[in-house]
């Protein structure tokens, strides 16, 4: 527990009155007033109830008021909502942000439940959302700006005014810029679900710095997200990040038949939305295949479970390719005409050969931004130009697998190259290498390919995936492979397929005077939605020819529009100078730096030293790989500014200033979508001097500008974040079409859900565009680039991101999925014989909720899942404390014995322990080294070639019997100090600070 100090005078905090609190409001009588416990205990019933079609239909048929009343009574199982004020809002306990309803009594939120109108979560709310009552009213909330009063790590704080906090933060930044230049600044943010992605990305831009990191990013979602844009210009296969929507359509519209859940566990990660949705799919008879080393709840219910050896997914993926190719299970017409696999590849450049290269007299009939390539034509048995057209209009019948000579040079098709890469991965070889059973692999493939029930043209499947894929060296290769599988099966833009594109999907130009017209799609790559491409004139556009991209970079009119190039030089230089970009150019997609390279730059000062750090969310010591390596460089940082609703290990160990943030019951914003609907995250209440997430940086930047003479040294517009609550609310009023904020926040029923019209479309690529050709895809070839030729260009000069001024070349990136053995292979590792992988639990999202006492009661401390056979050899029994050791460090956890993991695999969740810096501890610690799996993770090479992802999963460890670390709480009553108190619940409702 921290001591807050005002000036030199130590003052007691409200939490020091623990004795009073325990008399006035014990854990059990808090239950009576909060209704949370009822909700927690009723989670299973609540979710199961929603899976009943009858119940669901009834719920959907009622008005929202009636529905919420009904739901309130059934889901909580405790009191009614009589006399409570009801407000519709959205949860923010994870990235999926399920619609929710808050009930208030005297301004205090006393009850939460899911919103039954939400089309996928349908009234569900998981334990993370329900426990918002504990985080919102936690005695550990930071309600006022704090300045460190002791040394870093001492956990002593002084409450200061907002004016002072902003001034001191701004002074530190301005001083550093004047002293060392803008590159001395860096920003960071938390993982998916954190609020400040855009703000963290653009804050350094505003200051003229290229440095921003996020513990996720290359280790969480960026590779899958970015690869899909490069692959076909469309949505990725992530189930956790709301990319996959199609399979969750209501039953009457739902065409899903087989869903492959590869390296994801929606039942645990996003329980109320995609977890519940998957359960519903299964109840409708949809078949599922789960690829996961851990026997997750989704694996339990799967038709086929493949417990793959951690980190060997590329091999299993290639095995699927091999089997599908060998048994001709692929969708041949789709592969021939909608993928680039029939293209001949130049053995020297590795790039697809353009028609004019082999046929000098060839004149393409298609527009200049739709090039013609070369194939082996089965009609003529000759190498021939392959022009883009509708399949039925094609002049050639392209062979997918071919190798032969033309003009004295040996060419292969891209399909042939893929086939050869996959060739070693027979069922048997894969089973042996990946610790699987060959017959189970075969069963899974045949189910996915509809090998025994009519094939992929008549039926549909789809792969969805999760974060585990991003956490190894194969972070780019595996999404390349998994999207490749769906592409050769033709499971694209089809009802029931996971790879669909929503809304206009980039196919329709709004500029036509005759209304929207279908056009050739273009993909902008820099930033979310490619927003920085037109904003700063950086980044080439997929779908424009080389000449058109040159015009784009000059700010000239092009078919894809026109860019503002007024700040192109600075924007381009920031790309070139970003740390780690020479080798891992895929990070440009989110404008992020390579985390280990940033760490090294802080440590060594070279090639430049980030020294003032503005962290916008979370616990960096719990979430960054190899936490110790980061702890070691904290003394190298001049000033660390943090913002968060709580103090975590990182603030305790590192922060100089902490800005207090709103919790989700306080912060207005628009949530992620569920199907075609969007929802309001409402300002249900507000306590203390907390502010919305975008505001501290916006206010600091204004002050920095003052101190630097009126101008910031970076890009304009730089920071994309609002500087006041009113501005945020005004934006929401506009989005939802309300009269004003009062109208929107109180008459929310009139404005939510906000429905996106024409959201679901299918076979869009076949529509005839304004150039007379099928619309196609947003790639150079206008086809799905299963052979990802753009990765080769990227490795050589940074294309399409670092453009027009190129980046230095590095080793070529692989354009196809390649087999990768994990950096720390268990094969032959006698010292560290187990492979550790990790995942989420339903009680926590990333680093959140560790202060929530009921979550901690349900899952009090780190556990390591060990197979009983392995445990027996080590003399370890269920719930024994063990020490888990990697080559980076040691942590402790309780052994959870289960046959749900391979005897050579162990599984953990990330954990950190805020109780370690509770004032009751004899020897306080930062709480990040006791049980945190990131003490063990590996953040050095080999990295993923495209994105620089390091090894968070699939590395080797050893296990020994041990004892519980002193500071760790495990018994329910130990978490009493984390319980909301009468005082915190009585915090005055406050006005906006800004």
């Amino acid at each position, binding site marked *: 527990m921290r001591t807050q100090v005002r000036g030199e005078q130590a003052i007691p905090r409200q939490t020091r009155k623990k004795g009073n609190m325990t008399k006035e409001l014990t854990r059990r009588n808090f239950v009576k007033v909060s209704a949370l416990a009822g909700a927690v205990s009723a989670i299973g019933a609540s979710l199961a109830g929603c899976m009943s079609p009858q119940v669901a239909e009834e719920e959907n048929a009622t008005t929202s008021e009636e529905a919420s009343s009904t739901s309130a009574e059934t889901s909580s199982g405790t009191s009614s909502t009589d006399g409570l004020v009801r407000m519709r809002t959205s949860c923010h306990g994870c990235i999926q942000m399920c619609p929710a309803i808050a009930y208030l009594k005297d301004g205090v939120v006393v009850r939460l439940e899911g919103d039954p109108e939400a089309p996928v979560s349908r009234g569900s709310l998981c334990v993370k959302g329900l426990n918002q009552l504990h985080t919102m009213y936690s005695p550990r909330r930071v309600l006022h700006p704090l300045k460190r009063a*002791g040394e870093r*790590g001492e956990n002593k704080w002084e409450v200061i005014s907002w004016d002072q906090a902003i001034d001191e933060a701004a002074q530190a930044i301005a001083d550093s810029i004047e*002293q060392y230049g803008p590159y001395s600044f860096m920003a960071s943010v938390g993982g998916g679900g954190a609020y400040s992605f855009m703000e963290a990305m653009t804050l350094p831009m505003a200051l003229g710095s290229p440095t921003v990191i996020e513990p996720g990013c290359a280790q969480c979602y960026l590779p899958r997200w970015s690869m899909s844009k490069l692959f076909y210009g469309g949505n990725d296969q992530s189930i956790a990040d709301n990319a996959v929507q199609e399979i969750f359509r209501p039953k009457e519209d739902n065409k899903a038949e087989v869903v492959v859940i590869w390296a994801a566990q929606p039942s645990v990660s996003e329980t109320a939305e995609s977890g519940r949705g998957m359960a519903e799919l299964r109840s409708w008879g949809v078949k599922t295949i789960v690829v996961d080393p851990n026997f997750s709840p989704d694996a339990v219910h799967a038709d086929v479970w493949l417990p793959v050896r951690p980190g060997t997914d590329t091999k299993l993926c290639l095995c699927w390719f091999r089997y599908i190719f060998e048994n001709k299970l692929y969708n041949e017409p789709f592969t021939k005409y909608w993928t680039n696999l029939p293209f001949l590849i130049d053995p020297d450049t590795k790039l697809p050969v353009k028609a004019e290269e082999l046929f000098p007299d060839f004149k393409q009939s298609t527009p200049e931004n739709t090039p013609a390539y070369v194939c082996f034509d089965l009609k003529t048995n000759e190498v021939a130009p392959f022009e883009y057209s509708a399949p039925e209009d094609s002049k050639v019948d392209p062979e997918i697998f071919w190798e032969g000579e033309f003009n004295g040079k040996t060419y292969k098709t891209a399909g042939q190259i893929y086939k050869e890469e996959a060739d070693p991965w027979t069922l048997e070889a894969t089973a042996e290498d990946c610790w699987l059973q060959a017959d189970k692999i075969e069963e899974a493939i045949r189910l996915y390919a509809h090998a025994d029930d009519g094939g992929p043209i008549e039926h549909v499947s789809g792969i969805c995936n999760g974060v585990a894929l991003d956490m190894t060296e194969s972070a780019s290769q595996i999404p390349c492979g998994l999207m490749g599988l769906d592409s050769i099966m033709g499971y694209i833009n089809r009802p029931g397929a996971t790879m669909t594109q929503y809304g206009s999907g980039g196919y329709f130009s709004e500029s036509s005077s005759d209304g929207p017209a279908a056009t050739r799609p273009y993909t902008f790559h820099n930033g979310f939605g490619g927003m920085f491409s037109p904003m700063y004139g950086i980044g080439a556009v997929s779908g424009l020819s080389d000449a058109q991209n040159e015009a784009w970079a000059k700010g000239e009119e092009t078919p894809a529009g026109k860019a503002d190039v007024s700040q192109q030089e600075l924007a381009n230089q920031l790309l070139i100078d970003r740390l780690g970009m020479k080798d891992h150019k895929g990070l440009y997609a989110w404008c992020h730096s390579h985390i280990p390279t940033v760490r090294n730059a802080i440590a060594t000062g070279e090639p430049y030293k980030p020294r003032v750090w503005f962290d916008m969310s979370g616990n960096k010591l719990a979430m960054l790989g*190899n936490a110790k390596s980061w702890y070691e460089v904290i003394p190298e940082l001049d000033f660390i500014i943090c913002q968060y609703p709580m103090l975590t290990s990182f603030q305790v160990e590192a922060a100089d200033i902490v800005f207090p943030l709103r919790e989700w019951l306080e912060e207005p914003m628009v949530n992620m979508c569920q199907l075609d609907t969007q929802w309001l995250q409402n300002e249900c209440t507000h306590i203390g001097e907390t502010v919305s997430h975008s505001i501290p940086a916006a206010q600091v930047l204004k002050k920095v500008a003052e101190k630097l003479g009126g101008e910031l040294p970076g890009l304009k517009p730089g920071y994309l974040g609002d500087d006041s609550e009113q501005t945020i609310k005004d934006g929401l009023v506009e989005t939802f079409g309300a009269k004003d904020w009062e109208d929107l926040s109180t008459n929310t029923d009139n404005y939510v859900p906000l429905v996106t019209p024409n959201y679901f479309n299918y076979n869009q690529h076949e529509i005839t565009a304004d150039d007379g050709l099928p619309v196609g895809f947003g790639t150079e070839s206008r086809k799905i680039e299963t052979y990802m030729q753009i990765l080769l260009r990227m490795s050589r000069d940074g294309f399409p991101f670092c453009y027009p001024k190129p980046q230095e070349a590095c080793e070529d990136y692989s354009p196809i999925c390649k087999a990768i053995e994990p950096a720390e292979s268990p094969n032959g590792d006698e010292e560290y014989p187990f492979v550790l992988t990790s995942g989420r639990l339903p009680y926590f999202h990333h680093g959140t909720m560790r202060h929530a006492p009921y979550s901690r009661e349900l899952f009090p401390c780190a556990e390591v899942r060990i197979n009983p056979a392995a445990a027996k050899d080590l003399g370890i029994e269920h719930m024994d404390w063990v020490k888990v050791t990697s080559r980076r460090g040691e942590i402790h956890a309780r052994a959870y014995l289960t046959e749900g993991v391979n005897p050579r695999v162990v599984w953990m969740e990330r954990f950190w322990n805020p109780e370690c810096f509770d004032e009751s501890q004899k*020897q306080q610690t930062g709480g990040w080294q006791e049980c945190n799996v990131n003490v063990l993770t590996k953040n050095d090479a080999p990295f993923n070639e495209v994105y620089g992802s390091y090894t968070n999963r699939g590395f080797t460890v050893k296990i020994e019997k041990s004892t519980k670390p002193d500071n760790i709480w495990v018994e329910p009553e130990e978490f009493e100090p984390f319980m909301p108190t009468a005082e915190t619940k009585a915090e005055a409702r406050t006005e906006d600070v800004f």
Partner: protein
Amino acid sequence: MPDMLEGRPPVESAYADEEVDNGFADPAQTDVDADNQEETALTFEEQFAHLLNVISKHPLNSEIMHKTLKYCTEERLLADVEREIASFPEFSRATQNQYHMVSTLVKAGGLDFIERDEAGNLVTPERKAGLTEDEIDELVATWSYRTTELGNAAVADRTPFARFAELVDYTAERKSAYIDVLKFVAEAPRSIKEVEALLEGRPEMQAMVYGRMETLKASVFVDKLGRAGVLVWDGKWRLTQEGEEILAELTS
């Protein structure tokens, strides 16, 4: 709070040809069992390493602490120490007040805290025994500080001369650039942009960093010279007194 840096060399540059090993594979030192072990008496070398670690704990205060140790080689009154620290150019960016910094040095064994009565006699714990807080307040007339043997060792070991020599030894290929920066700053205090203009395009700016040829920013040079106690920021970069002496020696 357990300090994992304790007893370890400070984080330092890792240059050139280290290829894929970025140094993260050090022997693990995160075992909390080890943290829970009883403390044993530290050797002088261990205490010395601890003091250097405390001094380097916060870079904005580090040079101030060095200078404070040097200033207190003879006994100084608290008020004088506070005034002296306030006069340091680095103090404008310090994250702690003077009292906190000297208290940190006392705790780390670099300074002795000395209490005297009106007659100038030491107020020892024995003299305080049995007195109330008010009586102690009455007894103590002055508070002062003097650098300990450990602190003097740190002063001697970490002089700007020693740190500059270490810097040049470590990156000999940059020596001419360092000297040119010193000369440039000796002519007139300089902004970072002026130093950037001075160094632009020079071969010393090219360096292998973790196996990659990188172009260093000019801030690398002022940072390292600043950390050596040779340059100081005072609205612009200028030489410290020791910096002037070093430059004179180099150019004589």
